């Protein structure tokens, strides 16, 4: 029973992937579809853009969200509870609900069609989840660790950087992996905010039907290749991903 479900689950993917190596109709082995997609769009270049963008966004989110999460958990200030609730509420805002004014604002600022502008949108939209997750994680760490660091003469900043941050590595990994996959797999934001000449792999693939240079099999070939990095990330961090899901769920 389980095996039947498993096979049914994988069959469409395997069937489509195998199809990229076979000539349509005759079924002869061929690499023509793979060369087609490489001629239609700069596959590897686009993947490089996606990777660079994803890494930049991961760094940006960690840099901004982690101190905030720490503050909301351990350095509470007046209104910090409200800030946490706002972060959770912002996680619920659909991208589409804010995208139109966002786009117009960014046009006015000259940030549409720039890499920085795109990264900024991703980072801003990724921060609420980062804050939510790191806050919850830091809350679980005992206050006595911070107190002990203070006894040893560490200030608030050292206590954060030297003692608490290393302990939070699992939470940071979850945020990083989720952000990486989110950016790599996004279409809408990249479609609107990226420069025309520089595209992420998602936009590149989505633009293929318009080029008439690639048929269905070539598009699947490009898709398979583009899925390699996120699948590798997934295989490496499978535990963190499931952990993140459960952590996000169990709170």
């Amino acid at each position, binding site marked *: *029973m*389980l095996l039947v*479900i*498993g096979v049914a*689950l*994988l069959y*469409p*993917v395997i*069937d*489509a992937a195998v199809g990229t190596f076979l000539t349509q109709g005759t079924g002869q082995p061929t690499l023509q579809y793979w060369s087609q997609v490489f001629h239609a769009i700069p596959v590897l270049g686009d993947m490089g853009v996606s990777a660079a963008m994803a890494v930049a966004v991961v760094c940006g989110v960690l840099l*901004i*969200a982690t*101190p*905030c999460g720490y*503050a*909301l958990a*351990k*350095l*509470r*200030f007046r209104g910090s509870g409200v800030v946490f609730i706002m972060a959770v509420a912002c996680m*619920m*805002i*659909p991208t*589409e*609900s*804010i*995208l*139109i*004014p966002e786009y117009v*604002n960014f046009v006015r600022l000259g940030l549409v069609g720039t890499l920085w502008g795109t990264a900024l949108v991703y*980072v*801003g*939209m990724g*921060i*609420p989840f*980062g*804050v939510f997750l790191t806050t919850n994680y830091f809350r679980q760490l005992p206050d006595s660790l911070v107190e002990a660091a*203070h*006894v040893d003469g*560490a*200030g*608030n*900043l*050292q206590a954060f950087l030297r003692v608490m941050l290393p302990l939070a590595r699992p939470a940071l990994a979850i945020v990083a992996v989720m952000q990486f996959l989110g950016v790599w797999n996004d279409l*809408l934001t990249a479609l*609107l905010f990226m420069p025309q000449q520089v595209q992420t792999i*998602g936009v590149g*693939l*989505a633009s293929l039907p318009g080029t008439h240079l690639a048929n*269905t*099999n070539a*598009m*699947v070939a490009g*898709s398979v290749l583009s*899925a390699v990095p*996120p699948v590798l*990330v*997934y295989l490496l961090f499978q535990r963190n991903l*499931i952990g993140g899901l459960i952590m996000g*769920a169990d709170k």
Partner: protein
Amino acid sequence: MTLPPSRSSGAVTFSDAAAPEDLSPAANPAGDRRRRSAHPASSSTFRRRAWTGFLFALPAMVAVAGIMLLPLFQAAYYSLTTWDGLTSTYIGFSAYTQLFFHTVGIGQILENNAWVVFSIPVGLAVAMLAAFLTATRAVGWKLFRNVVFFPVALSWVVIGIVFGAFLAQDGGLNALLRTSGLGHLTHDWLGSPATALPALLLTFAWAMFGINTVIFISGLATIPQELFDAARVDGAGSLRVLFHVVLPIMRRFVGLAFVVTLISGFTGIFGLIFVMTSGGPGFSTTTLEFQVYQEAFSLGNFGTAAALGMVLFAMMAVLTAVIGVISGRSSDI
């Protein structure tokens, strides 16, 4: 506009926070006694801690305010206007009556969103069955558990292209039908209005199956094994165990899976629709989410798009709240 400063102020925050701390390395005798509020020196420590916390949180607050909250308020305002992206005219709430009564295709679009909701229980039922089989160590459960989650790593664009190929006239599904003697059932699944939405929803269910199964597997793991054993001793069969022991305990996990799937289906599958059908034929696979994009960037109706976005936001808020109450997790998420 607030954003570039916020990035640099992140760096400033660190050095500012460090400075006063470095000047008073021995300011912690109060910490030794662990009675912060009783001691005057410790209350200043406390205040400084709060101040540092505020500085730590500031960059994130500014970024979210500028990138999420500001556009949300703008969207709320512009939804009450006719707006082409440059000039807007305030027309008040009649914008919403126009939206619901005069927008081309709006009935079909709302119906499609309803179908997304109706399709969720079907997907969840299969995921629950698979999770239950995995938990009861059915044949191949280890392999299955490792494979099932992997669509999580695939983008909607990739899933859309792969399933677009599979469901095409000359695709894998029709080939399968032909070889199994069901050639008369072959069909252009995505090309005809009657089957395009079911095909899209099937693909969506496929993509969400892994997440939901994993949610249910981790939910089942919270049920003590003795409960299963006790039910077995009482002579309950697998299905009875599933319905009378497992499902009641799993209520909040079902709620979670429902919400996760709903959020994806309503606000996350733009890429899937864009690649598979572009919302067509006609409006047959256009959801609210997709129409926001179409109104703004194909038709130039930024005001209508903003209003649709607000409707989507309201729908999400109401639906998640309702599911939260039903599944007994109202205080969460």
